[in-house]
């Protein structure tokens, strides 16, 4: 096993799938010679050739359309949207087209497409580079939305996404690309989509989170441990569909829960998790399920970013409210 960052694990997953399935294609803006603006596709064009790993003209809707058309001719596309804030340019290709093909053709055509894209705040980007738009994607029936929080998960989840016969939106948090390093097997392996992972076991409170917020939640759990609270941290990993079984089992064990997301509070994934918990486990609850989320503004300018983004202190504060309710 090798120590890998998340970006290395992602490149490794792409390499495994390009090697193991000749129908896998990787394309997007600057993914070829340049290896992607974050180097997620570093060396892949050199290894697999320009026919398999290629640059496209700069137009996101065109990239989405390309993925649709390539699926129809039997390819398994892994396009990159350079930053997920650019997704609005490709919304029709994703929500209007990719997500609907299996349905509208009565299960005769399908779209094995994994759209990879960096997202997430805290790295002082220009506008439209940091937005958390997974809630928008999760509302579209026909898609799956996957967000890894560790290098190990990233590799296994990406391989599963590529092998999935339905379209997957695979979101990679910018701040996690190089900040976490861990042992990642060099061989190919999969982690099932739609399965959450208990990153830390506990008895007094469940924290549900995904992406960067998993790490902030783990930090908060450590602090709470010092005060005598045993806190469970569940990494959703797939935010659509949710792993209801794991979520409910955790709530039934701890009887208290909070949900953490980096995205704005309105609508979104956390609201959905709260709704599922109240519908399915209200009698297990000792306290209201509270959310930690960003305020309902447009993603802030970089100078206000650090105070706007939720962090472990916000999680601590909300966790205590629920623990002492």
């Amino acid at each position, binding site marked *: 096993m090798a120590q890998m960052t998340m970006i290395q694990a992602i490149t490794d997953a792409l390499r495994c799938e390009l090697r193991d399935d000749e129908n896998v294609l990787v394309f997007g803006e600057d993914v070829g010679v340049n290896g992607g603006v974050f180097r997620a596709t570093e060396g892949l064009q050199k290894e697999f050739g320009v026919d398999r790993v290629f640059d496209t003209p700069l137009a996101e*809707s*065109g990239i989405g*359309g390309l993925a649709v*058309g*390539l*699926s129809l001719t039997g390819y398994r596309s892994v396009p990159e949207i350079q930053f997920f804030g650019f997704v609005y340019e490709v919304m029709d290709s994703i929500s209007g087209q990719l997500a609907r093909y299996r349905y509208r053709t009565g*299960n005769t055509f*399908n779209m094995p497409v994994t759209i990879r894209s960096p997202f997430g705040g805290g790295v002082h980007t220009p506008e439209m580079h940091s937005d958390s738009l997974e809630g928008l994607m999760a509302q579209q029936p026909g898609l799956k939305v996957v967000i890894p929080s560790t290098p190990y998960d990233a590799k296994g989840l990406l391989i599963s996404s590529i092998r999935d016969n339905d379209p997957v939106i695979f979101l990679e948090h910018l701040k996690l690309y190089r900040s976490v390093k861990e042992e990642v097997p060099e061989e190919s392996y999969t982690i099932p989509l739609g399965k959450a992972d208990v990153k830390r076991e506990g008895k007094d409170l469940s924290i549900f989170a995904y992406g960067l917020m998993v790490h902030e939640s783990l930090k908060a759990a450590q602090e709470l441990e010092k005060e005598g609270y045993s806190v469970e941290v569940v990494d959703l990993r797939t935010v659509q569909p949710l792993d209801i079984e794991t979520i409910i089992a955790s709530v039934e064990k701890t009887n208290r829960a909070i949900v953490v997301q980096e995205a704005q509070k309105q609508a979104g994934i956390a609201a959905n998790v709260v709704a599922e918990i109240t519908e399915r486990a209200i009698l297990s609850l000792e306290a209201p399920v509270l959310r930690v989320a960003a305020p309902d503004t447009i993603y802030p300018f970089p100078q206000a970013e650090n105070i706007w983004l939720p962090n472990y202190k916000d999680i601590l504060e909300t966790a205590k409210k629920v623990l002492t309710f």
Partner: protein
Amino acid sequence: MGEKNLKQFDPAATLASIENNFEMFQILNEEGKVVNEEAIPNLSDEELIELMSRMVYTRILDQRSISLNRQGRLGFYAPTAGQEASQLASHFALEKNDWILPGYRDVPQIVYHGLPLWKAFLFSRGHFVGNQVPEGVNVLPPQIIIGAQFVQAAGVALGIKKRGTADVAITYTGDGGSSQGDFYEGINFAGAFKAPAIFIVQNNQFAISTPREVQTAAKTIAQKGIAAGIPSVLVDGMDPLAVYVATKDARDRAVRGEGPSLIETMCYRYGPHTMSGDDPTRYRTSDIDNEWAAKDPIVRFRIYLEGKGLWNEQKETEVIERAKEEIKAAIKKADETPKQKVTDLISNMYEEKPFNLQEQYEVFEAKESK
């Protein structure tokens, strides 16, 4: 600036020189006379008769579809009369394995490519079985989002190129569609990848009610292909021979590895935009209608074929009778198709149902079994 520099710097002249190159390509004029002898395609008598039969058949299909719609027996329908040459003569240049990415008015082409007529009726009625294309028939269900099929056609064409087969992807939109971002992205992507795609713009003069001149300052839509670096042609879309030749030429070049083409066919839809409440008298005069009726593709092709001794009233009657019978049989078959259920729709969302759809499936299974 000196005189020499001024000559080099004359953007208006550059534009004019490009636009003036787009003369409308025609072989048969309105009177059915050959005006371009050298360009006559190498079609056999049987092929000419077949193309005429398809156009006549489609005119009847259109009339019957409109009347079925008015009886409440069809559903969504976009009339095709006036566009038979643009639709069927372009399709006539294709081969069986070519892919068609149609707009919602382009049902005749996909029927002639292998979608059973009863399924086309089910598409109109809003039944998913209508979009279940038989195995090996390379057509997509009609696209509703204007222009989305253009970027997808670039993708199919790139896939064909990578597979190395001698096929093409053809896609259709209208004059309105040529204003969409996806139109430009599609032709540009296909051009950049030198992919075997044929982009057809059936310029029927109105995007619902909006006239062609409101869409763009460009003198022709064909010239838009120049910006993407792809061969482009303006064709008389009421002339089946010209449409066939332009499409065949585009296909031959595509298969030879020379990349995509853009074809603008000048045509007219006689009927409303769709049968869902559009009233063309709000935006078109009877003068314009009459002007275009005089250019009718079936009338001129009939004159041409009668002149060659290949067509007569009896032949036409035979086609009309066959069309009526087949339409009747197709409607009957459509009627016999079991009603769709919400459980069918739930099952068609993913390869495997996630928990939410599994739960909802059970709810609807109980509801629908009552």
